[in-house]
């Protein structure tokens, strides 16, 4: 998949919110890209824009959008509907947005398959059972007749993953798939996703703000701030050579055993994000940045190539 110049604008009473501002993403088969950044930076809206599922008021524009050799830039709702839940699947941040409370688990799992692949219900059921077992649900047969509210959070999340996998998608977008889960369940689910990815060669875009997950799951990472990618690169490189002041700040904020003595002060990023509303100029991080200089207030920086496949949007890269 290749996306260039993705923008999402939403009108608000305070002016136009530029929620996503020129995001480029590229993903190869079998690869995992993690999108990180603090709450409100535009991760979910980027994902929803690619799925063609933006809120009504939002406006999307992009200069390029191709998927498996097909140009989707001007694809209509009909074509996107064919791809959704079929070739491209999404696990939503809010579990209940994708589960219908009044449908049984079995019906929901089978529905996508029957719509996209047709064939007999028996075949769809067989596939549903197979996947429920794969996501580690014991007694899968008895689960088919249950309803979402009868399942625990962990089980519901597994059902959503099974549902997203029904048609063996080439691309999966998972928006905070494990945030609400216990660490043990989280590890189990991420382990499973990686396993399935190896098997099917599925591409995975994983949205999270947990840097531990990023380190363990990603091949490449894109760090977003106020609607833009401010730094991206291979995961090992990003953790060993974080270059954007925001990325460095984030990594200093998390307690890492061994790096700090117990109870020692953690790093902080002063201030808060100002939402990208109205006419914007300069680097949006500048009011929180310890490296900021006059140029940061006026110049718009491009994402510049550093060594090792890393790219940085900051005056520090713009010599």
């Amino acid at each position, binding site marked *: 998949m290749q996306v260039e110049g993705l923008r999402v604008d939403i009108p608000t009473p305070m002016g136009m919110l530029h929620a996503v501002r020129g995001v480029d993403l590229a993903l190869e088969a079998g690869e995992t890209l993690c999108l990180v950044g603090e709450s409100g930076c535009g991760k979910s809206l980027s994902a929803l824009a690619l799925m063609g599922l933006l809120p009504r008021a939002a406006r999307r524009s992009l200069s390029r959008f191709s998927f498996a050799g097909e140009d989707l830039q001007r694809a209509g709702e009909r074509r996107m509907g064919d791809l959704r839940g079929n070739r491209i699947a999404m696990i939503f941040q809010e579990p209940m947005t994708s589960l219908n409370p009044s449908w049984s688990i079995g019906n929901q799992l089978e529905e996508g398959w029957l719509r996209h692949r047709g064939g007999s219900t028996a075949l769809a059921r067989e596939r549903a059972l197979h996947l429920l077992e794969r996501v580690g649900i014991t007694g899968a047969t008895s689960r088919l007749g249950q309803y979402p509210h009868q399942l625990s959070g*962990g089980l519901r999340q597994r059902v959503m993953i099974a549902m997203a996998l029904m048609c063996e998608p080439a691309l999966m977008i998972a928006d905070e798939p494990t945030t609400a889960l216990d660490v*043990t369940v989280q590890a189990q689910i*991420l382990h499973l996703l990686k396993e399935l990815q190896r098997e099917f060669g599925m591409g995975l875009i994983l949205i999270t703000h947990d840097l531990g997950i990023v380190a*363990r799951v990603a091949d490449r990472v894109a760090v977003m701030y106020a609607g833009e990618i401010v730094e991206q690169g291979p995961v090992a490189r990003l953790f060993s050579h974080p270059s954007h002041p925001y990325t460095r700040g984030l990594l200093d*904020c998390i307690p*890492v*055993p061994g790096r700090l003595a*117990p109870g020692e002060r953690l790093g902080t990023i002063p201030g808060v994000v100002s939402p990208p509303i109205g006419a914007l100029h300069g680097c949006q991080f500048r009011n929180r940045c310890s490296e900021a200089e006059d140029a940061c207030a006026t110049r718009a920086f491009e994402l510049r190539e550093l060594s090792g496949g890393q790219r940085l949007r900051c005056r520090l890269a713009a010599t």
Partner: protein
Amino acid sequence: MSETLLELVEVHRRFTVSAGLFRGSRTLHAVNGVSLQLRRGEVLGLVGESGCGKSTLGRMLLGLLAVSSGEIRLEGRPLAATSTRDLARRVQPIFQDPYSSLNPRKTVGAIVGLPLAVHGIEADAGAQRKRVQETMERVGLPARFFHSYPNQLSGGQRQRVAVARALVMRPEIIICDEPTSALDVSVQSQILNLLEDMRREFDLTYLLISHNLAVVEHIATRVAVMYLGRIVEEADTAALFRAPRHPYTRALLASVLTPEPGLGVPDTHLGVSYPNPVDPPPGCTFHPRCGEAMPVCRERAPTALADARGRVECHLYANGVK
């Protein structure tokens, strides 16, 4: 060993839950015989999976929920015999969600001052206001927020309001129930630093309930691990993280994804058969998911082994296997 401030002795808490239409009601044993001590000056981390009873335990310590049986003692005196005012002066909460735990229709000044007003601590309005402003300043809330409403503040500022509200009573003990789970990491670190500063400045004792084991390892001095209503292991933080003993503790620590690229996602080897809390498994309640379960684990609940390293409740240790 330092002095015990709060003590739970064989505490149980049961809830009656409906088992579904026409099936009557059943008993859920949320806290199932917990004996635990909170010692002056320590930060006791309480960890365990969702629904294991952590918040129920915290609410009982705050006097917000009665025990079904057993006893809680505050410096040796039964909590049941302590007035709510005295309890509020000594034990205060900080809850998870700064969005829902603050009244949206009250100003920051009123929210922080509420405990004083409710318990009639500073009768004089001027003195009350002064104390609120001092406390706000201490937690890094500028005085201009005094007349602001919660929705005008950022998540981090709201959690500072919650910290100020707890501190305004000048308590000795703070029960922190997931104090940073709803926050971004950049805000989480500010609040954790603040909690640590306040603890030093005011000689506070914390019970820290958290899902985030990196946070617990960083600020707790001792850790208690809970599983299905019981404390299954207790040890000093360094010892627990270096050499966890209970199989559940080991699985829990193995699941922590530290920010180290290249290590991949571990296989926890934990079964997926989540226990049903209204119908817990017999014997050791962890046995259906335990990789080391022995025949005895299905039959008898293990007795605790207490030694120099702490306390562990598992047949592997009780029988001298390990």
